């Protein structure tokens, strides 16, 4: 037994099976898409931070009053019984997401997702305090000193203040915010303090540290969004027919669009991209792009390296790797559409900037469809767009109709469960009920309560009129009386209506006589 066990030494500095996530230092970039993202940040965060301060009819305009179990959204108020509208609203939101994903890809991720939006703001603060990509990388590598301490400290101070304000605003949606502000922070209740701190911590952690890892490892939408995609969906796409083979060159060469070489054949172009991904150049390897290769089966092994290309064979990609450096998820978009791509368009803006510098036309990386990239016509109107669109329209119309046609009255009848019936002498039996009347209106109402019943069943004490204040919940004990000659179960109907007869509700219940 002297057989040697085959062992393999793992590279001690890496390539081990466990690898912690490398930090991404997105390079700042300006351009069309980044401007739109800034607009989105200001609008959406403006809504979040501003709405709790708006007033409506003497109350907070948007208030989710959990202790009172009432939601106010501007002129609308929602009661627990309106839960169905909330559920419907969530379904509508999901369908909106599907609809826009089908047409224009991951607009949600790039512009609207809170994760992206807050990360963007946290990145700005990081840039103000720590500088641009190269400075941040250098700072992280540098030993701790006064400069590093000051820069990192001020970053975290900014983050912390912003995060705490975010937590405060969040709680302000559930507790009237002016009052919450007046009591801050020592007179806050335990729960208010907890939620302010917890939400601040979540903001700080998600936007400051987890960032793209939330999108890559925690987000369900990132995992299933491709189900809504087809070749006619707008994606962030690199044009390999124009860009490949990539490579640096002096300012001696015009764009392929103006040269004899022209666009490559797609099969050839995708093969070049795939081989470049398997055998990265030194520049590509240095930026350490993550993600995979979406353009070819990863099962293919033994990929031949790229030959050395003549100058006039080169495509328009100068392999500057700026597109990888600006990517907030750290992928190389030239490898094709990947699920890590959040469609923020940073690589488009960056590449357009580079194209300007080298004097090539824009659009080597562009917001386009797979069909357009492959030189085929794009179809916007397709069955799935119609299906999502129609469903969405129907649901929205239904929701609007339902919300505007809500009856501002809830009436319920609970039978007294202790006794089936009660004999009250002089030949009569009685049943007891609790009538629950909720006036959802914002003004007081008077209601008439009457009964529709067979066999001489009447309301004990006759019809009556009651008054309910605005948004009041009334609990009325009611008795029905009938001659004891009435036997068994009888169906009765309580009627509750406003005096003007505008709003009415009928509530069925049952009356039991002796068996």
């Amino acid at each position, binding site marked *: 037994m002297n057989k040697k066990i085959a062992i393999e030494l793992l*590279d001690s*500095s*890496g*390539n081990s*099976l466990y*690898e912690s996530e490398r930090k991404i230092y997105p390079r700042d970039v300006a351009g069309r898409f980044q401007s739109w993202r800034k607009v989105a940040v200001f609008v959406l965060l403006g809504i979040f931070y501003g709405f709790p301060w708006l007033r409506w009819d003497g109350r907070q305009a948007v208030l989710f009053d959990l202790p009172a179990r009432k939601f106010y959204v501007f002129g609308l108020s929602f009661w627990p019984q309106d839960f169905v509208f909330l559920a419907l609203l969530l379904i509508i939101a999901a369908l909106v997401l599907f609809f826009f994903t089908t047409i224009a890809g991951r607009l949600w991720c790039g512009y609207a997702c809170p994760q992206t939006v807050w990360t963007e703001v946290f990145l700005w603060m990081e840039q103000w305090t720590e500088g641009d990509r190269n400075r941040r990388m250098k700072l992280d590598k540098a030993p701790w000193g006064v400069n590093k301490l000051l820069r990192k400290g001020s970053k975290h101070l900014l983050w912390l203040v912003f995060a705490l304000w975010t937590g405060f605003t969040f709680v302000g949606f559930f507790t009237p915010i002016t009052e919450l502000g007046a009591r801050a922070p020592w007179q806050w209740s335990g729960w208010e303090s907890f939620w302010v701190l917890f939400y601040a911590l979540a903001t700080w952690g998600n936007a400051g540290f987890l960032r793209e890892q939330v999108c*890559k*490892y*925690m987000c*369900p939408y990132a*995992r*299933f969004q*491709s189900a809504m995609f087809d*070749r006619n969906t707008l994606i962030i796409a690199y044009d390999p027919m124009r860009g490949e083979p990539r490579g640096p060159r002096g300012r001696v060469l015009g764009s392929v669009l103006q040269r004899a070489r022209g666009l490559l054949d797609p099969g050839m172009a995708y093969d070049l991209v795939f081989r470049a991904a*398997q*055998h*990265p150049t030194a520049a590509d*390897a240095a930026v*350490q792009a993550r*993600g*995979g*290769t*979406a*353009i*070819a*089966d*990863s099962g293919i092994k033994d990929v031949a390296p790229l030959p050395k290309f003549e100058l006039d064979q080169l495509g328009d990609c100068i392999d500057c790797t700026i597109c990888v450096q600006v990517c907030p998820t750290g992928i190389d978009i030239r490898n*094709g559409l*990947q*699920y*890590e791509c959040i469609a923020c368009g940073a690589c488009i803006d960056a590449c357009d900037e580079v194209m300007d510098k080298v004097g090539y036309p824009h659009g080597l990386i562009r917001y386009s469809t*797979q069909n357009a990239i492959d030189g085929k016509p794009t179809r916007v109107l397709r069955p799935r767009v119609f299906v999502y669109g129609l469903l969405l329209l129907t649901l929205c119309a239904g929701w609007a109709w339902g919300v505007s046609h809500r009856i501002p009255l809830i009436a319920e009848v*609970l039978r007294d*469960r202790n006794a089936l019936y009660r004999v009250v002498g002089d030949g009569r039996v009685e049943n007891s009920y609790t009538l629950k009347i909720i006036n959802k209106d914002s003004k007081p109402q008077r209601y008439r309560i009457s009964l529709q019943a067979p066999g001489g069943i009447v309301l004990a004490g006759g019809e009556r009129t009651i008054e309910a204040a605005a948004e009041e919940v009334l609990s009325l004990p009611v008795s029905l009386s009938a001659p004891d000659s009435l036997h068994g179960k009888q169906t009765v109907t309580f009627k509750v209506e406003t005096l003007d007869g505008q709003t009415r509700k009928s509530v069925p219940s049952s009356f039991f006589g002796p068996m």
Partner: protein
Amino acid sequence: MTDYTLPRFDHPPRPMAQRIGAIMWPSFFSAGVATMVFFAFVDPLALRDLTFPELSITRELGYTIGFFMFWLATAGASLFTWILLRPAARFNKPLPPER
């Protein structure tokens, strides 16, 4: 310096039975424990009277509904975990051939 040019290890897909088993079995187990603990403190009949007094739900039906609701929730969580743990290579696949 780590050599990032080497492709990272990508586990091949596991058999269907293994995938379903890994989702359904732990969730079944958790649902069982949760049901036991929950109904040790809550009587299904009392719960019925609080929620849907007009329905005639027996204790046995209450336990059954409770168990399957717990299982639905735990299986949902297990399914979510499975989706999130699938490697990137499962999602970054080439486009299917055009019809």
